[in-house]
């Protein structure tokens, strides 16, 4: 029935197995069931991008994915990506450029930006803005965020990464 279902997945490299209600979204599972609060929640219907995280290597909306859909899946959150250092340069550039103020949008922004740079090593500002169309920031006005992503791409290019 609507009774909990056991779901087994990998979160930031660690195996996790828990009984969850089918209606529990992935972002609520991460935040409330396992205490990883780095992934934020805003609109809860897919519009704002605050809940953006990685599922099986690609970004998804944590609010539009049910935890029960993640059986056998690999989830990476901002905590895991920070710990591994996978986007340290991008994070440093966000700080350098003041690309965050309140920080509410930042984990989702970083997830979207990191994916863009993986798929397109030297995106134009236009392409960066297109990618960020799914991530709302109510503080910075985006200019600094676009700058930070563009600069990261240039620096990686110069380093041959």
């Amino acid at each position, binding site marked *: *029935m*609507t009774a909990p*279902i056991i779901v087994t997945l990998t979160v930031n490299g660690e195996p996790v197995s828990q009984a969850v*209600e*089918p*209606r529990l*979204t992935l972002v609520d599972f991460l935040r409330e069931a396992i205490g990883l609060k780095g992934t934020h929640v805003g609109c*809860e*219907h*897919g519009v704002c*991008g605050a809940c*953006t995280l990685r599922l099986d290597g*690609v*970004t*998804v*909306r944590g*609010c*539009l*994915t*049910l935890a*029960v*859909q993640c*059986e056998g899946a690999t989830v990476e959150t901002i905590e895991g990506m920070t710990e591994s250092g996978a986007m340290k340069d991008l994070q440093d550039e966000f700080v350098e450029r003041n690309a965050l103020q309140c920080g509410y949008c930042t984990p989702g922004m970083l*997830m*979207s930006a990191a*994916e*863009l740079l993986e798929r397109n090593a030297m995106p134009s500002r236009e392409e960066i*803005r*297109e*990618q960020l*169309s*799914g*991530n709302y920031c109510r503080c910075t006005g985006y200019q600094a965020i676009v700058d930070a992503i563009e600069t990261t791409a240039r620096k990686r290019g110069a380093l041959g990464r």
Partner: protein
Amino acid sequence: MRLKPRAFEYVRARSLQDVFSVLDAHGDEAKILAGGQSLVPALNLRLAAPEIVVDVSAVEALSGITVVDDVLRIGAMSRYIEVATSDLVARHAPMIARAIPYIAHTAIRNRGTFGGSLCNADPASELPACALALKAVFNISSSAGERKIAASDFFLGTYTTALEPNEVLVSVEVPLTGPGSLFYFDEVARRQGDYAMAGLAARAEVRGGVLADARLVFFAVSDMPLAASAASALLEGKAPGSFDAEVVCEALAQTIVPLEDLTTSSATKLHLMKVLTRRALTDFAGKEA
């Protein structure tokens, strides 16, 4: 405020049989879950409150993009990202590859599915218009058997299709683009990823130097994708650069009254339809050679 769906039961189907048994037992109290990019927001907002949700993502029969004889078959569960990056789609149905980047945002395209978009039948959606313009055929199954429906019979209204509650969309077949095929796809939206204020999926073939089988299909202007047949008929038998776009635009104005929505009036939508039509015809004329 926190949003939370009403409680429901969840089943992960392994086969079409599994899906049928849930649908047969629960009727319209059951909902198919594909990419979830329309269903989960509806659950969160309690616009949908099914008793049971059947996840079809692991059903083999719904996956895959293949060429079978003279059609391109796209499995209903193919995610947008897969369709947008498929060589077969790029070669045989380039309009679809062109249309997908207009849908939503990357994280939603990583998850949303081709079949989910068609079954959701949002009148502002890109893919239903492509399906109609390309004369796609829908393969539908239930415990009672299989049937095929033409795109022109599939869409019945806003969020309404010819699917019965016990039926599953399995795949969609698109006739292969032949030599001499022209297509044009464009939309006007306020921001990247927003639903269109008006959009156009147009296709035609050049045979013996003149246009044949021309179809202008508009979206976000009616309660379903709208084939502008009077305007399309004006293109038949004419060389691509040889006619006056204003005559075609006039035919649109004479035959179509767009449905206004919350943000865009009927007059604005008609204006945008004309803008898109001029762009399409200019594009076709440039490909004359």
